[in-house]
């Protein structure tokens, strides 16, 4: 980072890398309501887009699929075979509505990060992953108390037949991880990935923009070119991460739902 600043300083102006202010947005239009910011608008747009894609694929499904239905079925079978079935087994079909909704919504929200003009991952605002993670969290506890019993759910979490002193350590760790850390990491994993990804893309594209257009110097030009190349490379990488995080989030959701339905130990 210091090298960049040095190079930037030699060109005259001062290069300032993007920071957390990237994620602060004023109202979408002057005089509009304070809550109607870009992330909020994108969240709603993403939800509507998810509905529209699902509608175009599944509104009138045919036995012999055509066009969008093929695409939708690939998505459906992917979530069913890779996410739902490994963790939920025979309950997979029952939870597919929730899991597919979650997967597509998160992926669409993530994809906004690389779509020109939009270029903002909705999940980089902690509120959105938090809502999803908390929904899964409460669902997990509800299912656990309902399927395993209101007390047995909590006792089932602790494995039996271990030496007594171990429980002194195990019980707090188990409850802490299941009821505090699990929902937190569930939300933060998605949030942090999208946050960092956006920051990286913004940084490299700003390097390119600064050294090639805003403040072009002979010495700075290679750095600018490197910035552009890295932006392209990181965009490709981000596309992968976006899919991976949507997949991971949904997979963890399926795992938590499964842990509510059946005791692990």
């Amino acid at each position, binding site marked *: 980072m210091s090298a960049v600043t040095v190079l930037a300083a030699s060109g005259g102006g001062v290069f300032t890398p993007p*920071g*957390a*202010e990237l*994620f*602060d947005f004023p109202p979408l239009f002057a005089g509009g309501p*304070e*809550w109607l910011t870009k*992330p*909020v608008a994108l*969240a*709603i747009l*993403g*939800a*509507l887009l*998810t*509905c529209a894609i*699902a*509608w175009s*694929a*599944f*509104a*009138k*499904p*045919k*036995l012999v699929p055509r066009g969008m*239905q093929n695409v*939708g*079925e690939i998505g*459906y079978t992917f979530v069913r075979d890779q996410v739902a079935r490994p963790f939920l087994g025979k309950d997979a*079909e029952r939870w*597919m*509505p*929730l899991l*597919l*909704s*979650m997967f*597509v*919504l998160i992926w669409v929200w993530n994809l906004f990060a690389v779509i020109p003009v939009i270029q903002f991952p909705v999940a*980089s*605002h*902690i*509120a*959105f992953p*938090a*809502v*999803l993670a908390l*929904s899964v969290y409460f669902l997990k506890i509800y299912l656990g108390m309902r399927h395993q019993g209101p007390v047995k759910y909590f006792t089932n979490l602790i494995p039996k037949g271990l030496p007594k002193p171990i429980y002194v350590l195990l019980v707090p760790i188990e409850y802490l991880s299941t009821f505090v850390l699990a929902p937190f990491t569930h939300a*933060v994993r998605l*949030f942090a990935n999208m*946050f960092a990804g956006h920051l990286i893309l913004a940084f490299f594209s700003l390097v390119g923009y600064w050294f090639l257009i805003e403040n072009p110097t002979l010495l700075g030009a290679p750095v600018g070119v490197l910035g552009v190349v890295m932006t392209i490379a990181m965009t490709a990488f981000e596309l992968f991460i976006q899919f991976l995080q949507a997949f991971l989030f949904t997979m963890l959701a399926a795992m938590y739902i499964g842990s509510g339905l059946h005791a692990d130990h």
Partner: protein
Amino acid sequence: MITAASVLAAEGNNPLIPHTYELVVGVFSFLVVVLVVGKLLVPRIQQTLAERTDLIEGGLKRAEDAQAEAKQTLDAYKSQLSEARQEAARLREEAREQGAQIIAQMKEQAQVEARRIVENAQAQIEQERTQALAALRAEVGAMSVELAGRVVGESLEDEARQRRIVDRFLEELESANASKAL
């Protein structure tokens, strides 16, 4: 993490603290998607996929059934054919036996008939010969007597005597013939 968050918080909003209105919008967005995609659309594709599975499994089952039926029919035809072959062979064998039997019967009959005809003929010949011999004997006797009477001029009217003389003459004749034949 906490220090980084607090540093960021000092610059602007803490990215780890959610905005209230974003929480509301997040819940709303998620709810809309779950209702439209999850409640409305996913069951449709689930039903279609189930129907497709049924259809394919049904098709495979039908093909299997048809194949089994075809095999059954083929087996039935094969067993019928082999039965028919056995029946034909049996009939041929029977016919051959019958034919042989008939031929044997006919041969026997023909032989019997032939023997009968031959016997009849022999009997008839014998009879005729005896008759002829008797007639000849009587006639020759009479002629000889007449001849002798004429030659001797002696009437030999006593019939018993006549016969004895003729018989004796003939026996002499026959024995002479037999010795000559020997």
